[in-house]
């Protein structure tokens, strides 16, 4: 990883918003849960393992730029999953094409749990509807907010 990415990761860990510098005149910002991948070597295997939940999407969790990416963000939010790594493929064409080649999956968004490819929006939605998502989150050590919602109802 080059120094730019390393410093952005430092900000990521610290949970602060920071200006990580510029590369080729393009200013890059790192924030608590966002990382604009620097041009150059992208280690996808490393990226998807660094965090329990990793999403490659169009736009950001606070501003999705696509209906399918938005659906993924909303589903995760419903389950109380707010801490995850979100990579905006619209910021970087190499990232956009690279992740498709890495996971051998043609579309964005792409969701990874513990470094393993889960699927796109369709799959996440079906997992949410049939209860599998709650189980998968449990395996990650994440308690779904919906379980608590159920408890409150009773």
């Amino acid at each position, binding site marked *: 990883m080059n120094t730019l990415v390393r410093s952005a990761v430092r900000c990521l860990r610290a949970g602060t918003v920071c200006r990580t510098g510029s590369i080729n005149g393009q200013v890059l910002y790192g924030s608590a849960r966002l990382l604009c991948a620097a041009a150059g070597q992208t280690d996808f295997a490393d990226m998807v393992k660094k965090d329990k939940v990793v999403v490659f999407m169009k736009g950001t969790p606070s501003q999705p730029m696509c209906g*399918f990416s938005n659906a993924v963000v909303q589903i995760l939010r419903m389950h109380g999953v707010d801490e995850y790594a979100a990579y905006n493929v619209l910021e970087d064409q190499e990232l956009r094409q690279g992740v498709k080649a890495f996971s*051998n*999956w*043609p*579309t964005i968004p792409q969701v990874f749990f513990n470094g393993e*490819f*889960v*699927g*796109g*929006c*369709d*799959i996440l939605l*079906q*997992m949410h509807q049939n209860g599998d998502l709650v189980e998968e989150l449990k395996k990650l050590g994440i308690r779904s907010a919906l379980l608590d919602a159920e408890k409150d109802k009773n």
Partner: protein
Amino acid sequence: MEITVDHIRNKLTTEIGAVHVEVEDTSPNRCAASFKVLVVSPQFEGKPLLQRHRMVNTCLAEELKEIHAFEQKTLTPEQWEKQRAS
């Protein structure tokens, strides 16, 4: 290659033994070629979601290079019947 609803339907039927295929061209809703498909095939039996979707992706690999957005629902004939009944 012109990607039409019929083209996609035929490919899915021929290559993954789909017994029922519904293809919706959702391009008018977006700025580029987009499709929504429902595929019912006995070959999905016993396969987890991701594997089923990968089967469809492999079948339509060439088309997907040009398709911008793609939604898919994959069911076994049994699941399809259950869904229709409800």
